[in-house]
């Protein structure tokens, strides 16, 4: 394959690599040769510490455990918010009565940021994992609910009419038309929610914890360890990226029909 063909075929990957490489080089140069270096550790140092953190513990644990614990917290909260978010979104989208009762309450709670719930979550759930689940749950829940609601609301009426004309019962209309046609919306909500949940983990791990990537940042901030803060940020960025990419792949597989077209 000629170089031109190779470049044409892989242009988006090449551009991504070039963009990252340029960012790292600029960052490195700025932090080493300007006064900004006082507040911004060089990229190479952060990368080195990040790699080292898989062998040498930060606090009591190595990076793998920190990531694993945070993933567990996000996983549980994300799972719960998926179940409750889809249930609430579908109810509000499909039933006018449920919409009239639940939507105003939901819209009232929605703008309150998850971090604002920290004091109440400690009061209600204590200092253990439950309060962390709760904060991450709130970070994910609204996105899933809103998207599911929109998806259920926007079902093509022609399709519902067609199904009814073929003799579909209410139950069949719901399971065979409303739910499947909402799936792309639900997936869009899940993709935003998984990133939002991973972002909320920092806030959640502010609440009395000894491990987790959020804890790395909180402790780094407490003791003025800039490198540790940035190592924690790098871990969040990388894991968030992997999760979002995984979700997008899963969506392409499960909603193949939505990604076709000649």
């Amino acid at each position, binding site marked *: 394959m000629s170089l031109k063909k190779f470049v044409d075929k892989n242009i988006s990957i090449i551009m991504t690599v070039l963009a990252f490489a340029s960012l790292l080089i600029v960052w490195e140069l700025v932090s080493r040769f300007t006064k900004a270096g006082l507040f911004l550790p060089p990229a190479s140092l952060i990368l080195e510490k990040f790699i080292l953190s898989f062998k040498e513990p930060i606090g009591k644990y190595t990076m793998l455990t920190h990531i694993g614990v945070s993933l567990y917290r996000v996983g549980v909260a994300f799972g719960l918010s998926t179940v409750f978010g889809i249930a609430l979104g579908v109810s509000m989208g499909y039933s006018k009565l449920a919409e009239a009762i639940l939507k105003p309450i939901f819209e009232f709670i929605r703008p309150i940021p998850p971090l604002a719930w920290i004091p109440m979550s400690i009061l209600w759930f204590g200092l253990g994992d439950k309060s962390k689940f709760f904060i991450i749950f709130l970070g994910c829940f609204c996105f899933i609910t809103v998207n599911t609601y929109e998806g259920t609301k926007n079902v093509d009426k022609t399709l519902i009419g067609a*199904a009814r004309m073929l003799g579909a019962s209410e139950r069949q209309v719901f399971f065979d038309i409303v739910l499947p046609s909402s799936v792309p919306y639900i997936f869009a909500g899940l993709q935003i929610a998984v990133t939002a949940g991973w972002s909320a983990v920092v806030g959640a791990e502010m609440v009395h914890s000894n491990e987790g990537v959020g804890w790395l940042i909180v402790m780094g901030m407490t003791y003025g360890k800039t490198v540790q803060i940035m190592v924690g940020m790098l871990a969040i960025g990388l894991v968030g990226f992997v999760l979002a990419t995984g979700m997008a792949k899963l969506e392409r597989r499960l909603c193949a029909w939505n990604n*076709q*077209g000649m």
Partner: protein
Amino acid sequence: MEDNRKDKVKVTHLTKKFDDLLVLDDISFTVKEGEFLCIVGPTGCGKTTFLNSLTKLYKPTSGEILINDEPVDLLRHNIAYIFQEYSTMPWLTVEENVGFGLDIKNIPKSEAKEKVNEYLQVVGLEKYRNYYPDQLSASMLQRVVIARAFATEPEVLLMDEPYGQLDIELRFRLEDELLKLWERNKTTVIFITHNIEEAVYLGERILVLTNKPTGIKKEIYNNIQRPRNIAAKDFVDLRNEVTDLIKWW
């Protein structure tokens, strides 16, 4: 002309009002079993309201619609409806779309599969069975919908300007395909269109509707022999007769 077939659909004094607006005004007619009835009328005369009232998608204000002498019930009577808009389910493949009505009616899997294969072949879409609707052209989409409707072997097939969005060549092809299926299955078809040529080409009988409030202006029997030639004198004469009836210019 004497028609000995038994009555399949009986519409008596069908009236539909939206608040104070009278849309359908005391319509009565009968459709025979296996008949191909075309309904034509000026654009905006309420043809779709008429069909939607017939299927109870809209509740009639008064009047009665009977199928086999029983009040129409979508769960009991096997009715299929082909809309002007494409109504394929985008998340199902062509094959699954054709089988959708059979699944809804809980037809055993093996029987459903046979029917799906049969109708995919009739509409010439076997090669595309694993495609999704997004990958198909407009005429293919409408053929999927037609196959889906015929696969359930409906007692009554309602069609609301199904070819309204297609170009003339595709329309001719699909009209012939529809006639083949109708002759093969002896389905009772009620076909609504504003295209007079289409009505004369397809129908055994044509109901000409008036402007709003919609009523029946005239009922015309169409005995032109099939296959019909759109350039033949009898065809042109009948087309002109219907055109004169709905002329508003």
